[in-house]
């Protein structure tokens, strides 16, 4: 005889410091937004150094930026935007308690994250082969090689930090998909999905700024 399990009652899902599930959800979202504010400042420092060096060595930045692959960078922007769409649908599936759709959408979002990382790795490899990675391997035939190298320091620091965030995001999505397949988020207990979604969309926002500022600077 199969064991019948009823969905857990709402009171079982609410931690004792909260009045109800609504308040618990609001607290989780507020905490995530505060974390995202600290992330804004984390990336903000890098954007600030980019701004200073861009104004100081504008002409060098235009020349160096032209060496980046716009097609790969632009494709990756589209990949992340579509992955955000899937993530938004995943949160919706969680709200409607559609378990199978939720698992599939989370896996689809993670897959697009993997596509992004694969394209990024192809790009990094291309940069390495073309001697654009800063350090002893770096070669620059144009004017002002040390400031050209500076651009690539900033490029690798910013895209590298972003790539770490995408990698963490993929891990979070896979764990969420596993938990979702076990029915952990049923009965209105989908805080983790919503918060994971906020993180994923934030990573998307960072790339929305990185793409024009790094790839599109020198093409006019």
């Amino acid at each position, binding site marked *: 005889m199969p064991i019948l399990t009823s969905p857990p009652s709402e009171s079982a899902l609410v931690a004792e410091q909260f009045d109800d599930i609504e308040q618990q959800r609001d607290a989780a*979202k507020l905490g995530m937004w505060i974390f995202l504010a600290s992330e804004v400042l984390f990336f903000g420092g890098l954007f600030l150094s980019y701004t*200073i060096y861009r104004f100081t060595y504008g002409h060098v930045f235009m020349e160096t930026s032209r060496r980046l692959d*716009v097609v790969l960078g632009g494709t990756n922007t589209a990949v992340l935007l579509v992955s955000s769409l899937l993530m*938004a649908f995943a949160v919706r599936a969680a709200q409607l308690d559609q378990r199978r759709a939720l698992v599939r959408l989370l896996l689809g979002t993670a897959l697009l994250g993997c596509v992004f990382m694969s394209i990024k790795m192809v790009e990094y490899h291309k940069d390495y082969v073309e001697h654009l990675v800063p350090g002893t391997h770096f070669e620059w035939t144009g004017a002002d090689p040390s400031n050209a190298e500076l651009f690539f320091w900033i490029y690798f620091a910013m895209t590298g930090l972003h790539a770490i965030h995408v990698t963490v995001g993929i891990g979070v999505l896979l764990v969420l998909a596993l938990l979702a397949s076990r029915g952990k988020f049923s009965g209105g207990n989908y805080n983790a999905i919503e918060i994971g979604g906020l993180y994923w*969309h934030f990573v998307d926002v960072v790339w*929305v700024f990185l793409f024009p500022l790094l790839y599109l600077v020198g093409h006019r």
Partner: protein
Amino acid sequence: MEKVVDPRIYVRTCAALLVLLGLTWATAYVDLGPFNLIVALAIAITKALIIALFFMHIKGSSRLLHLAAVAGLMWLLILVSLTLSDYFTRGWVPLNH
């Protein structure tokens, strides 16, 4: 229960973002002088706003969340404006050594 959003809104949001991506890509190849940077930043800020409003549900969430989101930007503004006010005003006053 939270309000569940019409899926068509998400599809339209994503379509708008992809159109803006095409727009920023295309304008990068047109010489607008200093306006290239301004246009690129304006489009990026618009895209970020669209993502925050519709994908991150800032639209329709509580005032407290709006405040937390804006607070992050305020601190970023302080970071940028104070640092740039230093960098861009260096050398205005000659130092006597």
